[in-house]
């Protein structure tokens, strides 16, 4: 399989660390899980097979179970319709809003350094001076707030 131009290859960690035996075991276990599941739901599978084989969408023989399935599903049809309409309505609003915001100014006022200093408890001058420092040490007080900020022992300016 080739990647589209510019599309990076995902850094997956797949089968390399696991032995071939473990991979085979996992695949066989999963196959067995499908098998067990198919066995447990064999009646439903037979019904589906009947429904989808030619003549399609018709039950070729009398299937009393079909009534059971319909009864279960139809029992929740009202709730299903309400949920569908609910999310359809929100999807419509979402779609309209996406068009609308493109016509509005999407900018948010920047956080002023003085505001940040007030919110974090770090003096404004310290915040300014630390912007150019690459290695920083921070002390945290008992209230989980910053109590001291200083350049680390190996100070180095941003290039």
């Amino acid at each position: 399989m080739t990647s589209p131009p510019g599309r990076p290859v995902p850094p997956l960690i797949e089968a390399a660390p696991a032995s071939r035996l473990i991979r085979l075991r996992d695949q066989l276990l999963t196959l067995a899980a499908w098998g067990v599941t198919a066995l447990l739901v064999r009646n439903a599978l037979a019904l589906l097979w009947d429904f989808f084989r030619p003549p399609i969408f018709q039950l070729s023989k009398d299937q009393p179970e079909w009534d059971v399935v319909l009864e279960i599903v139809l029992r929740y049809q009202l709730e299903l319709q309400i949920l569908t309409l609910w999310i359809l309505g929100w999807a419509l609003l979402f779609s309209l809003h996406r068009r609308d915001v493109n016509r509005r100014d999407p900018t948010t006022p920047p956080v002023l350094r003085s505001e940040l200093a007030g919110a974090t408890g770090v003096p404004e001058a310290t915040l300014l001076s630390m912007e150019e420092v690459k290695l920083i040490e921070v002390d945290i007080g008992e209230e989980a707030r910053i109590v001291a900020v200083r350049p680390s022992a190996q100070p180095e300016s941003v290039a």
Partner: protein
Amino acid sequence: MSTLTSIAALCFAYPFLMAWYWMFGGLMFGLIRRKVPPHWKPPPLESYPLVSVLVPCHNESEQLDETLGALAALAYPSYEVIAVDDGSTDDTWAKLVEAAARYPWLRAIRLTTNQGKSVALNAAVALARSDSVVCIDGDAMLDPNALHWMMWSFQSDGRIGAISGNPRIRNRSTLLGQMQVGEFTSIIGLIKRTQTLYGVLFTVSGVICGFRRRALMEVGFWSPEALTDDVDVTLRIQLAGWKAVYEPRALCWILMPETLRGLWGQRLRWSEGGTQAIVASFRSLSSWRQLRMAPMWINYAVSVAWAYAMLLSTAAWFAALVFGQGRYAEYGLSPVPGWWGSILLFTYLLQALVSVLLDTRAERGLAASLYYVIWYPLAFWVIQALSAVIGLPRALLRQAGQRGIWLSPDRGVR
């Protein structure tokens, strides 16, 4: 209707109805965004402002090279990375010092004592130079175009305060790894797409998320007490009137547990932290406008009730089996699927198919994971249900003011 019948009805109705709801929501989301280019071909932006990538690290020495290597390959033209060493006991700090000398875009912060992820992020966001921050975990690999997509989303609407990226699982050597690939695609991705349409996200993915610094500042940044910092901050940002959205094209490659013990620990923390955040957000209700969160709260409450219902149902079936009264099976309480179980199974398989269809643009070869999705309806849901059942009392009994802590995660087989 007897109590047992009601419980059985809940066991069936909740996953059945929500599966259809999520499928429909996911498809609508895909339809609305059908003209958005694929993730590897992002559209040009109005501007390319500086973005600060925050990387909290605790004993990440082994992973740092990969994480920083991926950050070095970002296609976005203007970014800085702030890595925070939160009192690591390995040589994380030494590696960061070395890397800071090598990479002009890297700044490193050292917390002198171990404080937890929330405090590490708070320190980083205070010292960041940009008002747009993207947070990733210390063992995650950001996709080259992820920042571009985050900024594309921010620039589309000034009221977006938080964005969830799309975490993709890297480690797939074992069955547990493969099961989680299916789970992330077929459940988490669909839920987030649907929640974005409605406008209320339960949580951003802590491993890849973006925030406006103003939104974070308004809610007092990350809470040190939160067990799941991501859920907590997402809910508070939305309660403050900001929007949270899902951007499926902002990819990040992550490591997940590949042992049962690791997976259980993670899921229990998610469950406990989720409940803690939901309860806290409910308590902080202060205006009618915040009631837009109500459907999300109701969904969460019903999902926990469903977990208890499943437990009760299975216990009732087992009791009937032991005491020779198989009549309970007629209420659909047997874990062996009859017609009810068959309908649920086929609904889930359809859901998995739909989600792979939606996510296949983000990740080629995803269809192969469909082979393993059978484990979710057969066994994997038990972990989810049990963690919800145990997580609820743990969250409610958790002492107020107790700090969230770092856990050394299981990072899978490598």
